[in-house]
């Protein structure tokens, strides 16, 4: 909103501060001048103001001048508009009936006769030019000028087009009005309208009607100045998508006492180019509305409460009680002193935002200046507690960051198709009523679609090596509510590029699994296993590759599903590279405590390594081999691991020239595996006969699984 410094000064004859200083002083009091522009010699400054929505009273020159008067302790020139005596009879020239007293609290009408509609001149023309406000005609400009001057919207009708009494009522069903913007509108039975006895004249407080618009040939004018219920105006404005300067002010609460003055100011301007007042001002007041606004009961203000809320000032004296009272008076309150430490405050009709003692305390602090309060620190009491998940989330994050995964954040929303595809169960998806786009129409039931979108984003920009995780919330519908669960997604594509001149290794399933293992290892899990996703029924996500995906089960609960993206999904997303994706169900993982490292004793004796080369049927999984070795319960079997696995035509051999040699002799549907073992005792150096016994046990266990030892 634009404000002219010279216009402000016209209300503040005693103001000595310069324009820049004034702008700064106002800004520090919350009447923010966001920009100030020098208009040239003698023209003062233009302030571009940003007034908060609660301060509709300051959205005009006089209101801002009042603030300056309070800040500087100056007198504010009174606003007056004496009109020439009414010509002819003192009989009201028009009848006004308020038939919707809940929506219209006050309505004034003044009849002017023999006016001349012409371009504005004088102060109106000058100030509008500086404000870059469009000039229309003296009648319309007068209403706009008064709004800029003192904030109360008014409206001028061509009185010759009004038929009979003015009636404030709700619109009738199917009633229509062509508004000043030329739009023919179907009115709602909850819209407050200004009507005459035959038709609707205006959408009250929002916009006037086309038919009674002031035209060049208009001779007789009816000036409306009224007070409308804020909520009613807000609803009409929203309903018709019509946000006007008038509706903006009325819906924030206009000044109940302003209509007669606003009407006089408009009339005075219009009469300056001819015409006369006809009859007395018609002023209809709804007592209930007045009681809620201009007639509010006084409220108490206690000195102790001011101190309790505001605290210490920089000068150490605290907020001055006498000065506080003067400030409130300058803002329009009237004070009735009740002893040395209390008073009763009658609130100004234009400050509907003031209702309670705390509101007055805010005014005192505001005008005093926030930056004149001291910086103190409250004493400490209570205990510091963190949500239990916090340490777990931090641990998950840190462990993945440490091994090369970068953290990403994706949208909380997804498309309906993705919601259906990625929801862990059918029928639990949650739709947004007013989404930003169809693609963001649902709350994400899983982090996987967001991760796939991020993978695609990178691959589409020729960034092929991607290693990302996200920690976030997933949503699912439950009866009457939306459930939220924390989850972690992993996305992997490309290869581990350690150095540009050394061979890189393409990422594979086991890189993803490694990250899952890394993460799970941070938690104290009694038993954990990984298996292929059960096909068909159950929790097998259809978005994972049926042969190259897995789940992790910790203490009986599935805590992760991960693997290569299903080919159909990859095709649908136009991903030509192999990508790996996984989701970790943090809600389940968080039920487990974090693992606390415990030092165990280390053996002083030499470890002995033994390798076992075996051929197994393809159906035998490493998990079975590992279980079989575990079940041997050999205390001295310190470690074992799968080393070389061969399923195809060659096997890795570091001694061969190209690092490979033909495997040869593998029966169909079999694979060879080299199992490395380490034996170590805590009680002594292992003897040959012990090692022999252990080896035999290992071989027997492996053979019992169908394995054949290779020579």
């Amino acid at each position, binding site marked *: 909103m634009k404000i002219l410094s010279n216009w402000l000064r016209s209300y503040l004859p005693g103001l000595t501060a310069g324009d820049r200083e004034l702008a700064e002083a106002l800004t*520090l*009091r*919350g009447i923010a001048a966001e920009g100030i522009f020098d208009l040239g010699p003698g023209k003062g400054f233009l302030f571009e103001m940003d007034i*908060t*929505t609660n*301060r509709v009273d300051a959205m005009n020159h006089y209101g801002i001048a009042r603030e300056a008067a309070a800040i500087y302790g100056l007198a504010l020139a009174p606003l007056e508009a004496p009109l020439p005596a009414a010509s002819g009879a003192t009989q009201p020239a028009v009848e006004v009936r308020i038939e919707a007293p809940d929506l219209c609290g006050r309505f004034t009408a003044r009849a002017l006769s023999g006016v001349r509609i012409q371009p504005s001149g004088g102060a109106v023309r000058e100030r509008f030019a500086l404000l870059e406000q469009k000039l229309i005609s003296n009648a319309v400009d007068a209403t706009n000028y008064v709004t800029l001057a003192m904030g109360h919207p008014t409206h001028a009708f061509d009185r010759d087009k009004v038929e009979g009494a003015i009636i404030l009522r709700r619109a009738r069903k199917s009633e229509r009005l062509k508004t000043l913007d030329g739009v023919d509108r179907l009115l709602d039975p909850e819209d407050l309208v200004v009507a005459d006895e035959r038709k609707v004249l205006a959408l009250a407080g929002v916009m006037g009607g086309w038919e009674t618009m002031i035209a060049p040939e208009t001779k007789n004018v009816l000036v409306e100045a009224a007070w409308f219920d804020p*909520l009613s105006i807000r609803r009409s404005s929203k309903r018709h998508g019509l946000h006007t300067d008038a509706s903006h002010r009325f819906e*924030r609460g206009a000044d109940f006492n302003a209509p007669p003055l606003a009407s006089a100011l408009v009339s005075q301007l219009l009469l300056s180019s001819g015409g006369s007042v006809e009859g007395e001002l018609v002023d209809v007041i709804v007592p209930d509305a007045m009681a809620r606004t201009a007639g509010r009961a006084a409220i108490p203000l206690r000195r102790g409460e001011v101190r309790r*809320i*505001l*605290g210490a*000032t920089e000068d150490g004296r605290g907020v001055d009680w006498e000065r506080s009272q003067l400030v409130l008076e300058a803002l329009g309150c009237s004070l009735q002193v009740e002893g040395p430490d209390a008073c009763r405050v009658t609130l100004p009709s234009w400050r509907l935002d003031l209702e309670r003692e*705390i509101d007055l305390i*805010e005014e005192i*602090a*505001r005008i005093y200046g*926030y*930056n004149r*309060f001291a*910086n*103190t*620190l*409250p004493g*400490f009491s*209570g205990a*510091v*507690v*963190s*949500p239990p998940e*916090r340490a777990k989330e931090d641990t998950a994050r840190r462990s993945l*960051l*440490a*091994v*090369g995964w*970068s*953290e*990403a954040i*994706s949208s*909380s*929303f997804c498309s309906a198709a993705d919601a259906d595809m990625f929801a862990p169960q059918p029928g639990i998806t*949650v739709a*947004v*009523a007013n*989404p*930003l786009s169809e693609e963001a129409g649902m709350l994400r039931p899983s982090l996987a679609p967001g991760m796939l979108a*991020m993978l695609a*984003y990178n691959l589409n*920009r020729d960034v092929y*090596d*991607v*290693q990302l*995780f996200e920690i976030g*919330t997933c*949503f699912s519908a439950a009866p009457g*509510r*939306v459930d*939220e669960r924390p989850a972690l997604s992993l*996305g992997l594509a490309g290869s581990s590029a*350690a*150095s540009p001149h050394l061979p890189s290794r393409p990422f594979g399933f086991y890189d993803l699994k490694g990250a899952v293992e890394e993460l799970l290892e941070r938690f104290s899990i009694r038993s954990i296993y990984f298996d292929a996703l059960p096909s068909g029924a159950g929790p097998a996500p259809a978005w994972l590759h049926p042969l190259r995906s897995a789940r992790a089960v910790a203490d009986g609960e599935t805590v992760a599903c991960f693997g290569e993206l299903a080919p159909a999904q990859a095709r649908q997303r136009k991903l030509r590279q192999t990508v790996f994706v996984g989701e970790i169900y943090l809600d389940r993982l968080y039920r487990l405590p974090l693992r606390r490292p415990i030092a165990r004793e280390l053996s002083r004796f030499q470890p002995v390594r033994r390798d076992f080369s075996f051929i197994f049927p393809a159906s035998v999984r490493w998990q079975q081999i590992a279980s079989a070795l575990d079940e041997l319960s050999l205390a001295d079997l310190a470690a074992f691991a799968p080393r070389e696995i061969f399923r195809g035509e060659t096997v890795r051999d570091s001694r061969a020239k190209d690092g490979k040699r033909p495997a040869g002799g593998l029966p169909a549907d079999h694979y060879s595996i080299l199992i490395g073992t380490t034996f170590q005792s805590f009680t002594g150096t292992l003897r040959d006969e012990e090692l022999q016994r252990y080896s035999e046990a290992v071989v027997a266990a492996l053979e019992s699984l169908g394995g054949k030892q290779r020579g």
Partner: protein
Amino acid sequence: MSDPEKPATIDFSPASLDRLFQAHRSEFDRDLADAHNDTGREAVRIKWLGRKQGKLALYSSGYMQQAPSPDAKKEVGRRFNELKQHVESRLEGLASGSQSETAAGEAAIDVTLPGMRRRPGAEHPLIKTMHEIVAVFEAMGYSIGVGPEVETDYYNFESLNFPPNHPARDTQDTLLIAGQEAKPLRERLLMRTHTSPVQMRTMERQPPPVRIVIPGKVHRNDAADATHSPIFHQVEGLCVDENITFSDLKGTLDHAMKALFGSAVKTRFFPSFFPFTEPSADVQISCIFCGGSGCRKCKQSGWIELLGCGMVDPAVFAFAAQKQPAYDAGKISGFAFGMGVERLAMMKYGVSDIGQFYSGDVRFLEQFG
């Protein structure tokens, strides 16, 4: 001190054998370390491996003769062999290097090629910024508060003194959950537009004193552009106790900003309006880039707007008191504050498009590694 030429008389317990052979090994290591050239190393070789007078030869014959039993001989033999292996391998390793530094035709490696790096992942700049803010308040005795991202109208608006149909609601375009029309307004679900609902949930759960800091993700129905995003993050705080004052609010935020940006940072407070605080303030800090002299980042003003805050409105306490009567606005008071994480991170790291935070673009994210 024993005669170096002749092994001392010893008892043959395993422990003293261990001690003895460890001493020999240390002596050899010292000799070798003291030998700085080929001549010196040759002397060490002769001293230890000389065929007749070499120490190992002497020990071998000496200890074996003294060993009282076959078992003792075995113990000595094992340790002796270990020592010999050690001596030989160390001397051998040196020899291969010293005789000729390079094999014929061997080329030098290019040490200027980039090394093999295992980079840690990059922390997300928003998460990192959020953690930094939270850490400052944790150090001031604040606990962390969390709450749901899908909220009811009651917690997101009504209990924070946004009455139904109030214009203040217009400033927060809200994403609504579908299918809620049949419910009363206060029970309707929406995506929280700020983390403030956690303040009310916390007060309902525990009587004062309360001191919490709330980091979290929030959503608004804002079309995305360079500075707007339907998703963003906030850190809010709440402090409630007896005798909490506006000057405490000022002091707390001034201290926190100094802890975050350095002790030279200044703060200033402007009146503002939020439905849930009264008095309300916007807080500016002196520009962290130019120190206040004016630069592009602060639009030449020397100040950067960073926080909204205020004293908790008594109306908010009245809502809390419905479940926890101790929130009696006549007896307790408090302040609340909040800041946008994106705004701060964009400024701090020079990010020009807010959308980059949510794209997952590896090139963008890796800059923060």
